[in-house]
């Protein structure tokens, strides 16, 4: 993984000093609430329902064991012993004290981490495919490009006060595992006319109040122009994006109002002026960054089946929580953070430390964070899978549910977030209680439930196969259900099935949707595909046919 050089380290250290001084000035009354807001938000610091919330960047989801150990230590020393993994490969701490935040940032800087631009109207943490570098059909590893974008976007002098936040996701394989079509900009590594890798540039996607799937701005961009093209997109957005209305300020609204053709024309005109400036990437720099992402020292091994002759529990875990690796004898292992009874995406300080140790022992000391709020060991020997499973199981980290109904994406909701209209975590609990039969979950197959506590859609409800949106109805928590959304290569927005339902009806509503699916599905057909084939109507009729059980 990327290692800081003296320049990277100095910048992060200087940021800590800057924020320490800004916090001091705020506490001394030299900065107003509003002035401080714009500064603290650039360091991932929100003032929330109970306490400040600090969001720490995990650039493109990659962590070393040393970094994860530090996150565990921070959770214990400054928080209440846990952290929350988000849908954008960040970790959030819910209980830090404002005057201690500079110390937390200083501790993070010692392990090459920071909270720079994890909130605020600036270019956010760049996210990527959690299977980067290990998935069999990848065109090219996206991580060097993520790092190049990370550096270019860090403290970008021109784009630090954008109309609204700006999120970039990069993929390197034909499958989209980074929800790139609902990002402000999606960068897809694709092959050009002569087979050489370059980029397809997508813009204008987003969720929130106005969900929109991104559109192609450029089908093929030669690789040396990546930064100049992004700079052109950002400049057009910075100058022309709306600033008069917060809910219309994202780039998706600009792209929609100009139309993709006019937006493209403006970007291309700007790009033509700057493409051969100092932004042009030289091969030496691309190679310098790429060298940090060379494959680890894999042993020469044959594929084996570690599940053979093992317990049912291990076999289920191996089937659902591990995945094919491009190198024979190795396996990708998911660590589910979706244990029933635990808030989705949460893990404790001691779990972080244990996982750091296990990563050292079993996966070259690296851990990845997925946008589905789980963790990943990318390079586990198949022969070590059983041992690893035993250790994970003892720590409550082997829930065999990856890709199934209970592997839900869920925002912190009303319990923590000051924006939320309704609870998410308690609804996740109700769903877990209702669907506790693994045979049934496995029979249902691949199913993505995504839940947000408000319109801001941090839980990506629009692109869930089943989406759940918390709404406030005269002070009560109600939930609007959508079906047919997808975050993948075939990205689509879900359709609302009808009037929202009360909290105690959510699990039964889902049960009714699934009953229709089980009845109507074709062999091997996913829930999503059945919805696409037969439409929303049969599902809707079933849900609203008679009152659901009280």
């Amino acid at each position, binding site marked *: 993984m990327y290692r800081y*050089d003296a*320049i990277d380290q*100095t*910048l992060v250290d*200087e*940021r800590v000093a*800057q924020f320490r001084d*800004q916090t001091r000035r705020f506490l001394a009354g030299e*900065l107003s609430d*509003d*002035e401080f807001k*714009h*500064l603290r938000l650039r360091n991932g610091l929100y003032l929330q329902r109970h306490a400040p919330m600090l969001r720490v960047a995990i650039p493109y989801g990659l962590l070393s064991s040393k970094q994860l150990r530090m996150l565990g230590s921070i959770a214990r020393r400054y928080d209440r012993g846990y952290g929350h993994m988000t849908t954008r490969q960040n970790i959030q701490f819910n209980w830090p004290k404002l005057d201690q935040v500079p110390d937390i940032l200083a501790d993070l800087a010692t392990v090459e981490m920071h909270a720079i631009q994890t909130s605020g*109207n600036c270019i956010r943490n760049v996210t990527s495919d959690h299977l980067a570098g290990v998935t069999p059909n990848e065109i090219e590893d996206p991580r060097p490009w993520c790092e190049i974008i990370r*550096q*270019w976007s*860090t*403290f*970008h*002098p*021109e*784009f*630090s*006060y*954008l*109309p609204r936040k700006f999120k970039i996701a990069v993929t390197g394989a034909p499958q989209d595992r980074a929800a790139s079509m609902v990002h402000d900009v999606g960068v897809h590594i694709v092959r050009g006319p002569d087979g050489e890798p370059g980029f397809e540039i997508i813009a204008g996607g987003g969720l929130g109040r106005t969900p929109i799937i991104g559109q192609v701005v450029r089908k093929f961009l030669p690789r040396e122009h990546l930064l100049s093209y992004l700079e052109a997109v950002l*400049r057009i957005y*910075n*100058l022309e994006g709306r*600033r008069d209305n917060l809910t219309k300020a994202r780039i998706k609204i600009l792209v929609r109002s100009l139309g993709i053709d006019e937006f493209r024309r403006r970007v291309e005109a700007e790009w033509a*002026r700057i493409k051969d*400036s*100092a*932004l042009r*990437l*030289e091969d*030496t*720099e691309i190679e*310098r960054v790429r060298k940090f992402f060379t494959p680890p020292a894999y042993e020469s091994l044959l594929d084996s089946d570690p599940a053979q002759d093992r317990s049912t529990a291990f076999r289920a875990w191996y089937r659902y929580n591990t995945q094919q690796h491009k190198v024979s004898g190795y396996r990708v292992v998911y660590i589910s953070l979706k244990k029933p009874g635990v808030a989705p995406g949460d893990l404790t300080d001691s779990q972080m430390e244990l996982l750091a140790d296990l990563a050292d022992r079993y996966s070259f000391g690296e851990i990845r964070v997925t946008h589905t709020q789980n963790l990943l060991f990318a390079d586990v020997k198949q022969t070590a899978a059983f041992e690893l499973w035993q250790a994970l199981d003892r720590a409550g980290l082997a829930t065999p549910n990856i890709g199934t109904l209970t592997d839900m994406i869920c925002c912190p909701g009303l319990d923590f977030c000051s924006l939320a209209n309704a609870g998410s975590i308690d609804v996740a609990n109700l769903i877990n209680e209702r669907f506790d039969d693994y045979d049934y979950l496995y029979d249902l197959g691949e199913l993505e439930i995504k839940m947000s506590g408000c319109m801001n859609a941090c839980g990506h409800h629009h692109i869930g196969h089943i989406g759940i949106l918390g709404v406030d109805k005269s002070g009560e928590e109600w939930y609007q259900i959508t079906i047919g959304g997808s975050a993948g290569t075939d990205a689509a927005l879900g359709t609302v099935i009808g009037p929202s339902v009360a909290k105690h009806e959510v699990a039964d509503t889902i049960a009714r949707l699934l009953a229709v699916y089980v009845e109507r599905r074709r062999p091997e057909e996913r829930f999503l595909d059945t919805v696409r084939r037969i439409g929303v109507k049969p599902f809707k009729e079933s849900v609203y046919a008679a009152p659901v059980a009280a």
Partner: protein
Amino acid sequence: MPRRLLRDHEVAIDTWRYLDEPDDSFDSLDSGNADEASRGALIVPFERWLAERDSWLAQPRRLGVLLGPAHTIDVLAADLPQLSLIAVQFPSPAEGRGYSQGRELRERWNFTGELRAVGSVRQDQLFFLARCGFNAFELPEGELEAARAAFTTFSSGYQISNDAGLAGTLRHR
């Protein structure tokens, strides 16, 4: 009391007057040793400039234009060689268009005059503003001295810069 600002990293007395400011507040300067050339230096709002361009240019004094966030620079491009100053407005701490306007003035139109940030400008924005090409800053009076340190908040940057004090680019490590 005459306005003070930060110009080229130094605290300086402002010798420019905005069109809507009374002339007499600058009379005190005239009795001092402000040089003749700058005595009548005047900053004209963008719309007034466009409407009355020729009559302003006929006046024998240094001229500047006050640019709002929504104003486009293209229409001003032809006049830039005759302008000594562009003041860019930041109506709120969240306003960010001025950063692009600054770079456009310096990099696309090669504007070499004074580029001034006015409005909701605090020391925390100075580092970025300077990198975008600004060299003058109207700050709260009490912040002027402390703000001089803001130019060295960071000792380097990942982007190309218009601030002569910093390396042009880091992509040649």
